[in-house]
């Protein structure tokens, strides 16, 4: 009963806000948030557990709605406070001191303290595939003051802060995780957090239900009464759900990419491309450098010259991508080297290089045949494989596409090395040490390890730059190192970098203030509200 009346009150408020601001042209800015309503989020992938302490899965669980990090990244990539209110770094880059927010309680009523942070980080270091790197040199966590956490590193950790958000390193309560195996802790499936919404239920295969946290630390937040996260695995059914007004928002291009145009021209919907900078989505082709013909640089250059990047963006990505000729995407603006350009689209030059390399066209016009694999994670990558196959056919290279499911793909590429060309979406992540190093550092040529250096690229100069930059506390020096790295990679060409693809968020226009940080599908919705009170 109270819920209904609150929603009606909200509608009334919205009405007055609208009337009051009609004469002004900028009424959007003066709108007052409507209280109440249920937000319906659609996800394609259902997570195996609800908190991201074991992995960064494609499908977010409860995310920042229920669990929080020490900091969060604003849309401009600036680091902003969340559970930490302020922080400082020692001059040598070895000691990070975080002041924690006071008066915060877990959803079960227990006070949140520095012991929770210390306990979470110490087990993330062991179980999380990415935080193992982040915290590799973390030697001591000082939690003697309940509202201060001090992290002591043995080597500088310049990439630390962007890894401490709600998605990468969510803080979970020590009193529920202490003495348990975090991998099998039952609270992973019914998380207790400090966030603006409280976990209510997870019906596997169907949905997760969250309700408003009345004791949230930020005053007057959140606006919404509840959030339903629905898991709909089929993209066409998600499209139907949007059209039938059954969902309010979906992330990472939730509908088939060719259907985005319909939403673009519909005033009831909004398309957003912001909020994906930390993902660093990069689409590239790796060469297997162990075997002929791609052992030869000329052959790799020929492949680069055979690709018309503008046609590739238009046909494969329907325009939702920008060229990324370098290994560090433009979105990672602190490190991206904009001076690098794609190899010119020039099939004649490509043919000349192949002739020179000793691969003349045979009687049937084919120079040689290669095994071409594609990452099954996104359907556009498979479209991309078909595009590249045609482009290579033009210059006399026959590429035979082999499509596998996920585990087979990993086994074939990373254990058996059974490929010549591999079209990938190996993401940059939030920092070069997170997503790029693994693909090019010779120390990461590891048979059987997924996402390792499967091209078998080995250049001592590149290794040196990676090792130096990882611990370089000076931002300018760090950038200079990574610029040098990008130029070497562009010259050596262990991979042809194609595009930074642009994931799209589709939402109902009535949903406001949902886009406040770089967390996309893990965002907290702390300030989000529904102008029509929800459908």
């Amino acid at each position, binding site marked *: 009963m109270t819920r209904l009346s609150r929603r009606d009150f909200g509608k009334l408020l919205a009405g007055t806000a609208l009337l009051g601001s009609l004469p002004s042209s900028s009424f959007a800015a003066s709108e007052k948030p409507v209280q109440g309503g249920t937000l319906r989020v659609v996800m394609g992938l259902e997570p195996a557990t609800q908190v991201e302490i074991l*992995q*960064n899965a494609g499908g977010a669980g409860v995310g920042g709605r229920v669990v929080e990090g020490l900091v969060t990244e604003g849309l401009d990539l600036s680091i902003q406070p969340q559970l930490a209110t302020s922080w400082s770094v020692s001059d040598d880059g070895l000691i990070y001191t975080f002041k924690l927010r006071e008066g915060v309680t877990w959803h079960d009523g227990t006070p949140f303290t520095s012991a929770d942070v210390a306990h979470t980080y110490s087990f993330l270091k062991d179980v999380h*595939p990415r935080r193992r790197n982040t915290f590799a040199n973390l030697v001591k966590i000082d939690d003697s003051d309940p509202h201060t956490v001090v992290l002591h590193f043995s080597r500088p950790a310049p990439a630390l802060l962007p890894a401490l958000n709600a998605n990468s390193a969510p803080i979970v309560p020590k009193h529920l995780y202490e003495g348990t195996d975090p991998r099998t802790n039952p609270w992973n499936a019914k998380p207790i957090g400090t966030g603006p919404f409280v976990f209510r239920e997870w019906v*596997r*295969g169907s949905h997760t239900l969250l309700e408003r946290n009345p004791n949230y630390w930020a005053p007057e937040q959140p606006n919404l009464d509840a959030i339903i996260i629905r898991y709909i695995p089929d993209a066409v059914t998600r499209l*139907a759900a949007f*059209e039938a007004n059954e969902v309010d928002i979906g992330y990472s291009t939730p509908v088939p990419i060719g259907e985005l145009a319909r939403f673009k021209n519909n005033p009831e919907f909004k398309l957003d491309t912001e909020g994906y900078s930390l993902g660093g989505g990069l689409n590239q082709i790796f060469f297997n450098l162990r075997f002929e013909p791609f052992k030869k640089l000329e052959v790799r250059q020929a492949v680069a010259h055979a690709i018309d990047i503008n046609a590739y963006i238009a046909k494969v990505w329907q325009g939702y991508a920008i060229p990324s000729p370098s290994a560090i995407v433009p979105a990672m603006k602190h490190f991206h080297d904009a001076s690098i350009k794609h190899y010119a689209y020039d099939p004649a030059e490509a043919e000349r290089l192949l002739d020179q390399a000793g691969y003349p066209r045979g009687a049937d016009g084919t120079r040689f045949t290669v095994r071409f694999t594609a990452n099954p994670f996104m359907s556009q990558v498979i479209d991309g494989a078909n595009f590249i196959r045609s482009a290579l056919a033009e210059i006399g290279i026959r590429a035979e596409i082999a499509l596998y499911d*996920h*585990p087979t793909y*990993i086994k074939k590429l990373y254990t058996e090395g059974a490929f010549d060309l591999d079209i990938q979406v190996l993401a940059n992540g939030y920092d070069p040490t997170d997503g790029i190093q693994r693909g090019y550092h010779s120390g990461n040529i590891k048979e059987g390890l997924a996402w390792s250096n499967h091209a078998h690229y080995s250049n001592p100069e590149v290794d040196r730059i990676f090792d130096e930059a990882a611990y370089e506390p000076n931002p300018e020096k760090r950038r200079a190192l990574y610029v040098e790295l990008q130029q070497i990679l562009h010259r050596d060409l262990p991979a042809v970098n194609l595009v930074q693809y642009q994931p799209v968020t589709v939402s109902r226009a009535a949903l406001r203030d949902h886009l406040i940080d770089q967390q996309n599908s893990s965002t907290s919705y702390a300030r989000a509200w529904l102008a029509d009170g929800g459908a």
Partner: protein
Amino acid sequence: MTLLSRLGFLLLKAVPTVFIVVTLSFFFVQLAPGDIADYIAASSGAATEEGTSALRESLGLDRPILEQLLHYYGTLAQFSLGQSMRFDVPVTELIAARLPSTLLLVGTSITLALALGIAAGAVMALNAGRSKDRLLSAVTLVLYSIPSFWIGLMLIIVFAVQLGWLPTGGAEKIGSRASGFSYLLERGRYLLLPSLALASYYIAIYARLTRSSMLEVIRQDHVRTAVAKGLNRWQVSLRHIVRNALIPVSTMAGMHIAGILGGAVVVETVFSWPGMGRLTYEAINARDYVLLLGILLTSAFVVIIANILVDLLHRVLDPRIGARA
């Protein structure tokens, strides 16, 4: 042989069946390249050597294959289906959450398929060669040849998107507090489209089957006798023709249950129906053989029980069957 001893015999027969199902499935899963550690690495987009090998060790994947199989038999011997490797919860818990909605979907589909199929088949047989027969023949041919996922998508576009009468997917209204009749009505709204999509192919089969077996029965002596006795048209049709024609149909329906359970994967995906089909798909994708074997075992039991029920139904339809045995 009494009914009870027959049931006992059938259940006894199920034990070697289950043993074969488990052993064969175990080896089939092993044939697929990659394992759960590869899958987790692939889906999370990150992996470390230590993490991957620790995972393999904790799940016993580093042991010889025969040892893993014996370990699984050991788990079964304790009347447990084990712990899912992907979800870290007991397999029985995952199956118990999904089985009811799949049984509901499959049960409704079979009922719909039988009711509509037999009705259409009877109309066709009684009007053989006439326009009604031709029209229904064409309709069944269409249903027979169109894949269920496409029918599902078309049903969604027409009834959920265009007309807005029914939901696009899901199994029930989330957070609904409806009870009693309105609850059933609400569930029915979610159930209708997926069960129609799943039933479509079988409607066609049962219609064709009913038609041909009725045409065969119509020519038999007992039907002529019944007409000669002076029974009216309806009594002859229902009691003497349809009832006899139902035996091949019910036999086929019993055999189809396994197929419908399999077909549920596609329909459950299109309608985001939280059932076993999708769980199976996830288990295969993740190479979670403990979960997969649990599902296969459960499905085998469902099929065995369904066949026992069909057996019993046959005795009702044709009392000679029980007597002969």
